[in-house]
C-alpha cells in the first residue's frame, strides 16, 4: 500500500506559473504604476510594466506652447525635482540663445537644486521606511522636510511645483530671510541625519530586507540606461554635476557618492550620504551669494534659432535631459524629455527578477519612482 509520503514525492509536485496584478492602486507603487507579474509561487519570474494611467501627452502639448510656458509644464514631470526640471529647460533656452547669466543666478539655482534634492531624499527616506513597515520614519522626515518647504515658500511662493526658473534667470529675488533660514537648516539637518541612522539604518530587520536584495550589476545598470542613485549604487560614475557641470557646480567642492554593493542597501546609502554632500554644497555657497541681477534681459516672446539643443541636469532621481528641436518659430518643433524614471524602470525589470514578492516592494522603494516622471 502506498503511503502519503510516497504519493507526494518531489517528482510529482509541480508548480504552475500564474499572473499577479500589482497596482495601479497599490500603496507601494507611489502612484498609478501597474506591474504585471509572472509568479512561480512567491518568486517573481518576470515583470511587465503597464504604463499610461497618468500619461498627459506633455511632449505633444509643449509643441503648442511658447518657451516660457514649457517651464511650467516640467514641474509636473518629477514633481519632487521640480526645480531641476525647470532649470534644464531654462539652461537649454539660454544655451540656444547664447545668454550668459550672472553669478547670482547661478548660485541661487544651485542652492535651490540642493535644497530640492534634500527635500526629495527626505520624502524618499520617510516613505521607504513606511513601505517596509516602519511608520516612524515618515513622521521624522516630514517634520524636517517642512523646513525646506518653508524656505521655498518664502522665496518662490510655492512649496512643490515652484516654477521658479525662467529663461535668463529666476522669477523673484531671494527672500530677505533666505540666508538666515538656510543657516538654521544646515546644522539642524547635520544633527538629525545621524538620528535617522540610529532609527532605521542600523535596525537588524531593515538590514535583512536591504542587504543582498535586488542586485543590479554595473554593466546592467549602464546597459539599462539607469542613472542617479540607482546607477551610483552599482558603482557607475554618472553624476552630471561632475561630468558636465552646469550653473555653479564647477565652483563648489563635493564628492560623487559611489557605492559598489549594487543591492538595496547600496542605493539606500548613496542617498543618505548624498544629503551630507548637498549640505556641504549649501554651506559653501550660503555665505558667498554674489550681488548682481537675478534676471537677464530677455525678449518677452522667445524664438530659438534653428537647431537642436540638449541639456542634461542631475535631478534627485538621476539624469534628466531636455532635447529641443527648433525650426525658428516661437513654438518648438519637437521636445523630448529624457526622464530618469523611465530608464530606471527598465533596470527594475532586471533587478526584480527572481526575488520574492515582498522584496519587490523594497526594491521599488530604493529605485524611488515618481510615476508622472515615467508617464509624462
Amino acid at each position: 500500500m502506498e503511503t502519503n509520503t510516497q504519493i507526494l514525492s518531489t517528482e510529482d509536485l509541480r508548480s504552475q506559473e500564474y499572473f499577479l496584478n500589482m497596482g495601479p492602486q497599490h500603496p507601494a507603487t507611489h502612484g498609478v504604476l501597474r506591474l504585471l507579474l509572472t509568479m512561480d509561487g512567491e518568486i517573481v519570474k518576470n515583470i511587465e510594466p503597464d504604463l499610461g494611467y497618468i500619461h498627459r501627452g506633455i511632449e505633444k502639448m509643449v509643441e503648442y506652447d511658447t518657451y516660457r510656458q514649457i517651464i511650467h509644464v516640467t514641474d509636473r514631470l518629477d514633481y519632487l525635482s521640480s526645480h531641476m526640471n525647470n532649470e534644464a529647460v531654462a539652461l537649454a533656452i539660454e544655451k540656444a540663445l547664447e545668454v550668459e547669466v550672472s553669478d547670482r543666478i547661478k548660485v541661487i539655482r544651485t542652492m535651490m537644486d540642493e535644497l530640492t534634492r534634500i527635500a526629495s531624499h527626505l520624502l524618499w527616506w520617510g516613505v521607504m521606511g513606511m513601505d517596509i513597515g516602519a511608520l516612524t520614519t515618515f513622521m521624522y522626515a516630514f517634520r524636517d522636510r517642512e523646513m525646506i518647504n518653508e524656505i521655498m515658500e518664502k522665496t518662490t511662493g510655492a512649496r512643490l511645483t515652484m516654477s521658479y526658473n525662467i529663461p535668463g534667470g529666476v522669477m523673484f529675488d531671494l527672500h530677505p530671510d533666505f540666508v538666515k533660514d538656510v543657516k538654521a537648516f544646515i546644522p539642524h539637518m547635520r544633527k538629525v541625519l545621524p538620528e535617522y541612522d540610529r532609527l532605521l539604518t542600523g535596525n537588524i530587520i531593515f538590514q535583512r530586507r536591504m542587504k543582498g536584495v535586488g542586485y543590479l550589476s554595473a554593466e546592467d545598470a549602464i546597459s539599462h540606461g539607469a542613472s542617479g542613485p540607482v546607477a551610483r549604487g552599482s558603482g557607475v560614475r554618472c553624476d552630471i554635476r561632475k561630468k558636465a557641470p552646469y550653473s555653479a557646480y564647477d565652483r563648489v567642492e563635493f564628492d560623487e557618492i559611489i557605492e559598489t554593493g549594487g543591492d538595496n542597501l547600496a542605493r539606500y546609502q548613496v542617498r543618505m550620504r548624498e544629503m551630507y554632500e548637498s549640505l556641504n554644497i549649501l554651506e559653501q555657497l550660503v555665505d558667498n551669494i554674489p550681488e548682481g541681477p537675478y534676471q537677464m534681459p530677455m525678449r518677452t516672446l522667445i524664438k530659438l534659432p534653428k537647431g537642436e539643443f540638449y541639456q542634461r541636469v542631475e535631478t534627485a532621481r538621476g539624469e534628466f535631459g531636455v532635447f529641443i528641436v527648433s525650426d525658428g518659430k516661437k513654438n518648438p518643433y519637437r521636445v523630448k524629455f529624457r526622464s530618469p524614471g523611465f530608464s530606471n524602470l527598465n533596470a527594475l525589470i532586471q533587478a526584480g527578477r527572481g526575488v520574492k514578492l515582498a522584496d519587490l516592494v523594497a526594491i521599488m522603494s530604493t529605485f524611488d519612482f515618481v510615476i508622472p516622471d515615467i508617464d509624462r
Partner: protein
Amino acid sequence: MTAEELKNYLQSWDDSLEFIEKIPEEVALFAALEDIPSEWLNVEVPLSHFKGIMQHLKSDENTAFDYLFNMTGMDWGQELGVIYHLESTRHGHILVVRVRTADRENPEIPTVEDIWKTAHLHEREIYDLLGIRFTGHSNLKRIFLTPDFQGHPLRKDYEDDYMILRK
C-alpha cells in the same frame, strides 16, 4: 576623444569595413551633419547598414559607446526617424546618431534592444507615439495609450478635433 577626433576615426571606418558585408560604393557610411549647431558630433547613418554600425559603435574598443542615454522619435514632415544619444562611460565622449526612413505607411527600423537594453521601453514608446516599427523587438506593443487607440499622436499630421485646437 574630442568631436573632431571622433569624426576622423569614424570616417576611417569607410575604408576598412570588415564588420559589414558588401557595401555599395555610393553609400556614405556616416554623413556628418555640420549644419546642426551642437556641442556633440552629429552623424547620420543609412538605414541599410544601421544595425551593423550600431553594433560596431558599442563593440569597438576606441568608441565603446555603452550608454544610450536618450532616444527620440522624430517626424520631419516627409520622413520619420530616430535620434540616438550615445555616451561612452569609459572614454566620456558623446555621439548623436540619426537614422531616417521615408516610408510613412509602414516605417521599419531595426531594433537596438539587443545592444542597449534600455531601448526596450524607449522603442515601445516611439512605436506608440510615432508608429515606427522596430523589427526584431521582443514585445512591441503600445505602452502609454490603450491597445485600441487609433493613430500615432506625435506625428505632425495627426488630427484630433477634440483634444488639439487648430488655429
